[in-house]
């Protein structure tokens, strides 16, 4: 992996730059995590370590909520597993681009994989230029997300002890609006549009499923409908040609 250092640096900095708007989206989310953790009964050390080592927003939220409800550890860990299953779909998507990298790179990029970094990076990988150091782009995005998350979680923890009702301010609106901004660039073709609409509808039909399993089920419904739409469009095109 010896590429000109300037090229690596350029990719790294582009990764950071393209992630900047998403840092804004994660800001309130981090603050709220800290604030909730502060009042959940979780110790300050454990709350900080969770951000530093688990580094998964939605799992952290749910874990803190379960701690407050005095849920057994095994259930918390199992819930984390299910909530984070979507990350396996992300890593499957990145597979073709990372298989040439040494394991130490794969370990780093895996540890730092988030919804945000994934959404930004997948566009970079899919661009047709043959830059051999796109993984530096992902690293830049990862580190920006990580440091940003640690900072706001910590501030939230400190503030949480002083402002007990920060949860009710509605700062959690940052997540859906950030995700909307991340979804739009993907929707460039009819099959993707079909897939998104199906996943959205399915997410409402699967609300009753426990542990947010509905997200994974809805994702599969979206993928299947997208593939089907793609097949129909391809078949029509083929029929026209003959």
């Amino acid at each position, binding site marked *: 992996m010896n590429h000109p250092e300037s090229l690596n640096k350029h990719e790294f900095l582009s990764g950071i730059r393209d992630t900047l708007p998403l840092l804004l989206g994660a800001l309130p989310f981090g603050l709220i995590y800290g604030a909730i953790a502060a009042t959940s009964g979780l110790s300050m050390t454990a709350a900080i370590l969770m951000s530093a080592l688990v580094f998964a927003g939605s799992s952290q939220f749910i874990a803190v909520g379960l701690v407050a409800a005095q849920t057994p550890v095994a259930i918390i860990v199992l819930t984390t597993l299910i909530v984070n299953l979507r990350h396996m*779909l992300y890593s*499957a998507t990145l597979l073709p681009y990372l*298989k040439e990298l040494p394991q130490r790179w794969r370990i780093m990029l*895996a540890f730092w994989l988030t919804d945000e970094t994934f959404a930004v990076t997948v566009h970079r990988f899919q661009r047709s230029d043959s830059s051999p150091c796109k993984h530096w782009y992902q690293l830049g995005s990862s580190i920006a997300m990580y440091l940003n998350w640690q900072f706001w979680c910590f501030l939230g923890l400190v503030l949480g002890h002083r402002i007990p009702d920060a949860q009710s301010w509605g700062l959690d609106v*940052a997540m*859906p609006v950030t*995700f909307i901004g991340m*979804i739009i660039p*993907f929707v460039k073709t009819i099959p993707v549009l079909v897939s998104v609409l199906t996943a959205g509808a399915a997410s*409402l039909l699967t609300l009753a499923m426990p542990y947010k399993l509905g997200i994974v089920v809805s994702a599969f419904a979206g993928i299947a409908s997208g593939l089907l739409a793609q097949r129909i469009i391809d078949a029509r095109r083929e029929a026209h040609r003959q």
Partner: protein
Amino acid sequence: MSGAEAWMLVGMVIVTFGIRYFLFAVADRIRLAPWLELSLKFIPPAVLTAITVPAVLLPNGEWQVSFANSYLVAALLSLAAGIVTRNLLVTIGMGLAAFFVHRYFV
């Protein structure tokens, strides 16, 4: 930090890292079938949408389909801003601004 907290953290770290790393670890040893590879491009928007839609329509775990729902108003305006400008920062900024204006002034 208590013992139970330590076990919880150890479990969560193993699970979260394990899920993220498993496929990367064997990346050079597995080959995806062509239709599977084709399906990968649908994953990101499908997952993100499945998280977003319920968060907007059931913000507090209960159905709220009306313009009195600040989350829904914010989502619709940020969607419109995103489609028009194609700019991530504008999309997020519009959503946040719309939410707080709606919640505290409407």
